[in-house]
């Protein structure tokens, strides 16, 4: 191997470029969301946009540091990093203060750190490390169980922190396992369950019985050989499904908190409550919808500037894009995110190292999940689950977490090319 000339050798500038554009756009929109006449300077460090600029600079610095780290480091230290992070999650449980019902923050001097943001990174490394081990086959039960365990530990700990949104992100890793050979039936099954779940919430168990029963009957009638065995298995499936329906009903009514029930009902259109639980989504849709085709113009958004949209710098930052930049703005942002995720997938596929490929899929899946839930939530397609929009939402921990995720992948990709020389 020849002496490396520069740490930037072999870097994929497309991903770096997309990263910089997204971070910059996020910063501009945070500025617009909190803009007021008193603090006009975008560099004002007492304001969120000032702080975000600091976070951005720091994140880029961390990105550079990652570039300096040896490419082998990540695969080698994947499991220790995972272990340490899990420890941190446990520590959080005992030390964190309550912030809006969640116990997920650690105070470090003047800053607060949210370990769950880094748990995604650690889990990605651990999963990539495990699945890339030679002779590990996805179709073996043991592999499935171990892989699931790697996910369930952080997910469980985060759930204990009462941070449901961040916990759900770990579901995104299913996509990674699918790529590595997990049967597509698992994904379809998950999807079917989700659909059944929604239907179970929408309709009474009796209606569900009629619907499912009819489907079962149609399936039975269209089979060429109508045997007793077939009838019995359809009946058994029916009973399992109805059991699921009843448990959804039970969980919804007995386990979920009233505000969670209302949120789900509002999303499903069963409840119309524009002033209550539906307020956020309603105002968010109004903000985005009122942007029109070209938007109201930079700093001209009334919905966001006058505080009609809650959490507008964090979870609902996309509203500012929609309101001030219109469909053109949202089109650009969606395209940029899609481009970034597709680029990650594309580059992941060109890796020779299974570790890097799997890690790349982890990064892409996490971004995709955040992208889907966050934007879907602002336009009323997804329930209100408080997770940030990568690179856009205000917050040091999430920005740092996403930056580390991405730059580690860029580094790993660059390292591949360096190996070739």
């Amino acid at each position, binding site marked *: 191997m020849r002496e490396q000339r520069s740490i930037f050798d072999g870097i994929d500038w497309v991903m770096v470029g997309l990263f910089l554009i997204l971070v910059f756009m996020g910063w501009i929109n945070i500025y617009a969301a909190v803009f007021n006449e008193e603090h006009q300077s975008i560099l004002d460090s007492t304001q969120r946009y000032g702080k975000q600029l600091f976070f951005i600079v720091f994140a880029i610095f961390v990105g550079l540091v990652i570039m300096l780290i040896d490419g082998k480091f990540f695969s080698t230290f994947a499991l220790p990093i995972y272990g340490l992070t899990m420890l941190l999650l446990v520590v959080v449980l005992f030390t964190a203060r309550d912030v809006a019902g969640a116990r997920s923050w650690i105070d470090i001097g003047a800053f607060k750190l949210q370990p769950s943001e880094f748990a995604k990174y650690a889990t990605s490394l651990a999963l990539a490390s495990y699945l890339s081990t030679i002779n590990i086959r996805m179709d073996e039960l043991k592999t499935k169980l171990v892989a699931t365990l790697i996910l369930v530990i952080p997910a469980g700990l985060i759930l204990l922190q009462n941070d449901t949104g961040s916990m759900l992100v770990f579901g995104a890793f299913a996509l990674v396992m*699918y790529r590595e050979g997990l049967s597509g039936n698992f994904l379809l099954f998950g999807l079917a369950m989700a659909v059944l779940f929604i239907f179970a919430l929408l309709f009474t168990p009796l209606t569900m019985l009629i619907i499912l029963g009819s489907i079962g009957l149609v399936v039975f009638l269209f089979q060429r050989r109508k045997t007793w065995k077939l009838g019995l298995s359809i009946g058994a499936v029916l009973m399992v499904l109805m059991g699921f329906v009843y448990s959804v009903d039970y969980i919804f009514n007995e386990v979920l908190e009233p505000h969670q029930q209302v949120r789900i009902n509002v999303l499903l259109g069963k409840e119309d409550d524009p002033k209550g639980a539906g307020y956020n989504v309603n105002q968010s849709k109004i903000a985005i919808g009122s942007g029109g085709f070209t938007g109201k113009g930079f700093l001209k958004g*009334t919905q966001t500037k*006058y505080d009609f949209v809650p959490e507008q710098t964090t979870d609902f930052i996309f509203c500012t894009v*929609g309101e001030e930049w219109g469909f053109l703005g949202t089109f650009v942002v969606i395209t940029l995110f899609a481009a970034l995720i597709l680029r990650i997938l594309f580059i992941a596929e060109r890796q020779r190292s299974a570790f890097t490929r799997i890690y790349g899929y982890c990064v892409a899946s996490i971004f995709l999940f955040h992208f889907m839930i966050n934007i879907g939530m602002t336009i009323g397609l997804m329930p209100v689950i408080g997770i940030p929009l990568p690179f856009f939402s205000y917050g040091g921990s999430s920005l740092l977490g996403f930056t580390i995720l991405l730059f580690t992948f860029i580094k790993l990709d660059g390292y591949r090319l360096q190996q070739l020389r």
Partner: protein
Amino acid sequence: MSFQSKHTDRMYVVMGIVLLISLTFLGRLFYVQVIDKSYQLSADNNVLRYETEFPARGRIYDRDGRLLVYNEAAYDLMIIPRQATSIDTTELCRILNISKEDFIRKMDKAKAYSWRKPTIFEKQISTITYAELQEKLYRFSGFFVQKRTLRKYPEPVAAHLLGYVGEASQTKLDEDPYYKRGDYVGISGLEKSYETELRGQKGVKVIMVDVFNRPKGSYKEGKYDTVAVAGKTLHASIDAELQAYGELLMQNKTGGIVALEPSTGEILALVSAPSFDPNLLVGRVRSDNYRMLQADTLKPLFNRALMSEQNPPGSTFKLINALIGQQVGVLNENTTYRCPRGYVSGSFRMGCHDHRSPLNLRESIQHSCNAYYGNVFRNIIDHTGKPWEGFAIWRKHVVSFGLGTKFNTDLPIEYAGIVPTNEFYDKHYGKNHWKSLTIISMAIGQGELGTTPLQLANMTAAIANRGYYYPPHLVTAIDDEPIKNRFTEKQFTTIDPKYFEPVIDGMAMVFEQGGTGYRSRHDSIVMCGKTGTAQNPHGEDHSIFICFAPKDDPKIALAVFVENGGGGSKYAAPIASLMVEKYLTDTVARPNLEKPILEANLIDPSKNVAP
């Protein structure tokens, strides 16, 4: 160490999912942002508050520039129920001094009207309450204060003709979109007929508010704001002093006075008794006072000067018959008739009082001889040989004085009075089955005739002008721009000017020795008048007097109508004479004539001191 990965094709599934999600989002965003326009509206509703700027309502001055109506600032507490969440009700109730129940009731009422639109929560709060509220208003989201103006009347006169303003009724709201709930609108009098001029033009200020309803500045640099345009000033023809004096003379009586300037048709005074202080119908006390006035058996809200149309003109109508008689050629100034204490025709007898006989035209007016006009009237009706033809001609002349029709003055309500038609008698007696004797009571202004005081005053003005009049009206100029409309167009009677002289001479003689108005004469003003007594089947006759002065250059013509005042000379003549004196000399120097009128009480006869 590298190996070809299995399941590479699954990359396309994952990429497909990414694209599917992205395209779903784009589709949804395109719908929400570009196709569905309702969100724009919602955003505007969120953030835009339309603040109405109410213009000052126009002021009203009298003919000498005295202020009759002006405005005083008042404050309405408004509410937008949708925005009124989590406020300190106890504190607000304390400031407004209302009970919790009141609060809930008002809130429910506002909500019932609209969640989004501002409604009046508390009307016309006091300046002190306003001061306290203004400081703390930011704590009561959804509430704001709307400045308004209230009418004020420096002189407590002319309530009937000025009218009053009140909140626009549902009917008004439905028929005219200019008005919004809680807006004020002229309801009667000049306030109603000149509503468009007086109200001005409301302005709108579009301001942006944040989620806490705090103003954040004007919307698009005021591009959509409109400036309120103040209402126009009305210059009324009324003479406030004369009006006040008329109301004073009519105290404790019911009836009306209408005084006109013959050369213009301008109304100098328009008194309807009993009257009331126009300030009673302003502000928070309005509805209570209105109910009180409405319940009053003397009907103070009823404008007798314009609406009392059932009463016959009595002997004042003889002037008209005298004029028509000359015009149709059955009478001249030298025609004399004997009066055997009444008019006799066969077995018919219409009584008269004691006076010398025979009388010529002038004297017939001076003495108000019934027999004379029995003859004149029958000759008019019968002069073609066919009573119905004669009657039609007679009627045409009568109507040319403005009797039996509306003038459409600039006051909202006015009655036409009654001058019967051929059809009326045909219906009553059969087609042409009636003759002059059948309807002879109209010879002396009784019977089917009905006239309002306004019509009698105008009839007097037409006589004073020797054959023409201008339709009576109240407003002479709007914002210093003199009116030029149908009120400034001369209306001619069908009587030749030359026939007026003997009649006017007779009217002057009314004030001379032996005349029916002798007691009400004035030493230096040459007045022309005529007494009248309207027969009243329900009680004491009504006292009527019409009058103009000076004889050769008439400055004022008026009609006085005193209900249950008996003969015309008793109450109406002195009142008319005093009014003329007041107007022409600015003082009243006849205490002997004035005092008994002021003391007279026709409403409560037990307190009456007959003059």
